């Protein structure tokens, strides 16, 4: 390859790096201008403090919250908090009943809703339904009581037999019917529509409070959901509409149950053809059942927005809370460690970096310039990435994260060290600097890629599978590893390629750090080299050359001294 194209490629790589940095800076800048984001990354709970939300369980009088229920609720709430990003939130319990959620910064209403609502999803068959206003009219004409209801709706016969399935009107007794006619939605909520016995029928209101329902017992519930996605609803002709819905996937048990119920409902007429979807004690929709759904993949609609459909999908995916919670208090808390720790950490880190620079200068002379500028670029790129992800992804820098970044100095610098040492090895073999850089890069690149791949694997596995603080760590590790790869490919190598063409380095100036003489390079006479090539065939020559190269130089000298052995 010509030296011309080498330097052209080097400059192209540097341009790419500049573009990446500029793009990141532009992304952050636009966030600063339009979304009131900041040029500095946000800090985690331990360094900045945040908001502490105490959630109290909504349980009926006399019932006790079991330890398992609480542990389950903590686990689910943690997953819900984590699903919003890498926030390094903390979830713990207090006094054996309350759940304490600590979130850095100030959470908005959507976050609060996401955390506390129980997301208890039930499917029940509709037995009776009517608009609240028309039921009130009926109640009104009869003076508030409902012994003999007016023409609409017709008087309801007492049950004649035990109900046989979830759509059987024999579920409805006069007490239930009275409640249906007279109770207001607020009364129904207070009576515990969201904690109702799943084996009994239920009187309940619609989400908007306009309709009242009498529903059969629970047929399918949220625990049978294996996956949920928020997406646009498809219209009747299969074309995407601009309404949002939640696409559910049931597990085997749920699929069977859903298929059985929908088969039964399709043949029923009137309101009993409807299948009500109950979320946290309100009917969010009660669609007519047009066909049996056998694949276990129903779609639920309701007046969803993009945000609410995705929030519900997340909640359903991680499971319903065993109980609903209400926010008892929400207060700001000061950091546990404080900025003092961060500051002295940064000061100490800066001193450490200074020591690294001094050591590099001793070790690599002018070449240390490449190390230092690479570290500076790596630092800048990491800062940009973290600031961007902090704004876009809720990433928060904790003290442990800072420690991870400081260790990353070592791993990043190692890439340069591996590279330089390989270049020096090639110089010792008697190569000229230009080709030593290329050959050394070829070998070093493999090593750098495979060792970074190991780190990246750790980052991805831990990020996907772990929860809580461990995810934050995995995130930091992943970011620094990718930055390391980018910097060594797009900065260190091109820079060295360009420097290798300068007189200072190419002539092996004693201060360049790449002086063949002080590296003890073996002098390979041109003539001898040619003779070797001439004697052996092309392929044989290649192997022999490789083997010669693999011999240590001491072995080679010994071989030369000992004649042609």
């Amino acid at each position: 390859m010509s030296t011309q194209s080498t330097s052209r490629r080097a400059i192209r790589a540097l341009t790419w790096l500049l573009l990446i940095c500029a793009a990141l800076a532009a992304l952050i800048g636009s966030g600063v201008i339009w979304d009131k984001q900041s040029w500095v990354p946000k800090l985690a709970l331990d360094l900045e403090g945040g908001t502490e939300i105490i959630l109290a369980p909504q349980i009926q009088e006399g019932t006790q919250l079991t330890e398992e229920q609480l542990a389950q609720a903590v686990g689910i709430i943690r997953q819900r908090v984590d699903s919003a990003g890498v926030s390094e939130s903390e979830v713990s319990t207090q006094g054996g009943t309350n759940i304490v959620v600590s979130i850095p910064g100030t959470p908005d209403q959507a976050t609060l809703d996401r955390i506390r609502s129980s997301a208890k999803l039930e499917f029940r068959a509709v037995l009776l339904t009517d608009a609240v206003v028309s039921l009130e009219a009926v109640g009104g004409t009869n003076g508030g009581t409902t012994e003999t209801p007016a023409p609409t709706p017709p008087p309801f016969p007492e049950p004649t037999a035990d109900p046989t399935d979830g759509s059987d009107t024999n579920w409805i007794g006069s007490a239930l019917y009275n409640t249906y006619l007279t109770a207001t939605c607020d009364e129904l909520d207070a009576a515990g529509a969201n904690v109702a016995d799943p084996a009994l029928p239920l009187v309940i209101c619609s989400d908007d409070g306009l309709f009242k329902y009498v529903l059969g017992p629970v047929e399918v519930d949220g625990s049978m959901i294996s996956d949920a996605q928020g997406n646009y609803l498809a219209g009747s002709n299969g074309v995407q509409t601009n309404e949002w819905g939640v696409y559910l996937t049931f597990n085997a048990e749920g699929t069977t149950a859903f298929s059985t119920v929908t088969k039964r409902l399709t043949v029923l007429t009137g309101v009993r053809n409807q299948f009500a979807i109950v979320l946290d004690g309100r009917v969010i929709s009660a669609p007519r059942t047009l066909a049996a759904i056998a694949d276990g993949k129903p779609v639920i609609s309701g007046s969803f927005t993009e945000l609410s459909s995705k929030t519900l999908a997340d909640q359903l995916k991680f499971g319903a809370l065993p109980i609903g919670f209400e926010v008892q208090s929400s207060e700001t808390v000061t950091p546990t460690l404080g900025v003092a720790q961060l500051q002295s950490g940064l000061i100490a880190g800066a001193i450490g970096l200074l020591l690294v620079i001094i050591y590099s200068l001793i070790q690599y002379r002018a070449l240390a310039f490449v190390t230092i500028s690479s570290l500076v670029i790596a630092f800048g790129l990491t800062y940009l990435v973290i600031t961007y992800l902090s704004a876009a992804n809720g990433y928060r820098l904790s003290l442990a994260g800072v420690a991870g970044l400081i260790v990353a100095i070592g791993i990043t610098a190692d890439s340069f060290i591996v590279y330089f040492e390989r270049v020096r090895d090639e110089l010792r073999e008697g190569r000229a600097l230009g080709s030593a850089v290329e050959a050394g890069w070829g070998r070093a690149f493999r090593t750098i890629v495979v060792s970074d791949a190991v780190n990246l694997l750790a980052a991805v596995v831990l990020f996907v599978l772990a929860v809580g603080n461990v995810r934050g760590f995995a995130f930091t590790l992943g970011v620094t590893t990718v930055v390391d790869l980018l910097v060594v490919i797009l900065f260190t190598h091109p820079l060295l390629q360009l420097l290798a063409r300068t007189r200072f380095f190419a002539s092996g100036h004693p201060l360049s750090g790449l002086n063949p003489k002080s590296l003890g390079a073996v002098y390979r006479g041109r003539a001898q080299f040619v003779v070797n090539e001439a004697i052996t065939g092309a392929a044989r020559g290649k192997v022999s050359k490789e083997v010669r190269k693999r011999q240590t130089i001491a072995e080679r000298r010994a071989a030369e001294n000992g004649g042609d052995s």
Partner: protein
Amino acid sequence: MSSITQFGNRLYTGETSINFIGRRTLWYIISIVGISLAIGAAALRGGFSFGIEFRGGSEFQISNPAQVDTSIAVDTVTSDIGADAQTRVTIVGGSSVRVQTDQLTTEENDALRASLATAYSVDINSVTSSFIGASWGSDITSQALRALAIFVVLVSVVMALYFRTWKMSVAAIVAMLHDLVLTAAVYGAFGLEVTPAAVIGLLTILGYSLYDTVVVFDKVRENTAIAYDESKRTFAESVNLAVNQTLVRSINTSIVAILPVGAILFIGSMLLGAGTLRDIALSLFVGILSGAYSTMFIAAPLYAQLREGETEDRKQGRAQRTEIVRNSAGAVR
């Protein structure tokens, strides 16, 4: 040129050679003694002391005190319970002070509540006490352990595929375990409280250890991957040469990695005294040194030892075959 460069030259040429492989029994013994000492010291200390993030503890909240000052609470707890009560003091909502400590007995609890009321000059009813659960619950630990197990299996497979021998995976994983056990034991020996940050520090070491081993093993692979018709070196000698040739890199990398961590450990401690940052820095400091040591003195000799049972022909034959496979694969692309 600096003397380390000269040293590097001699190592590279083979003039100077440290016998990493041959004296493996010595290195193994050093490691075993070191780990045993650290575990022994940690055991004498009574094992690990886990922070309140793991075990839960007692919590006091002082409402509307005259002074919203955290240092008063720290002093009170220290004089009442002792310095090792792992006190955490935060200001809640700008107007009340919250104190978290280790789990206290009922008597201690009542006594501290009264002292806090006196210290902040408030009525005792303005100081509420309750029990707090662990914020790093067993669910986080079990998820993290599961993730780690899956990672170790995956990384073993990846290394075995890349190096074309599972024996390198085994050697690298053993070296990693060596580092984790040693770091954890030294941490315990210092009697430091195990915080979530310390666990994260340990995870960092896990990554660093494997990273360091892979870098050196890649040189071993390079040195042993070509047929040695004309070389009189045995397989073990080739491995030894590779470790020697990467020794300068290992020294340089370890120094560069240890300098910032050491600065935090020593300078940070002077500035701050004990603190979370010092705890992490200590585990990183031990871990990085151990990681560098285990790569050269445990992983490489162990790898050579694992392949000892194979005949030279087989080792080299395999190497030759893989070389051919690699070349033909290159041609297809």
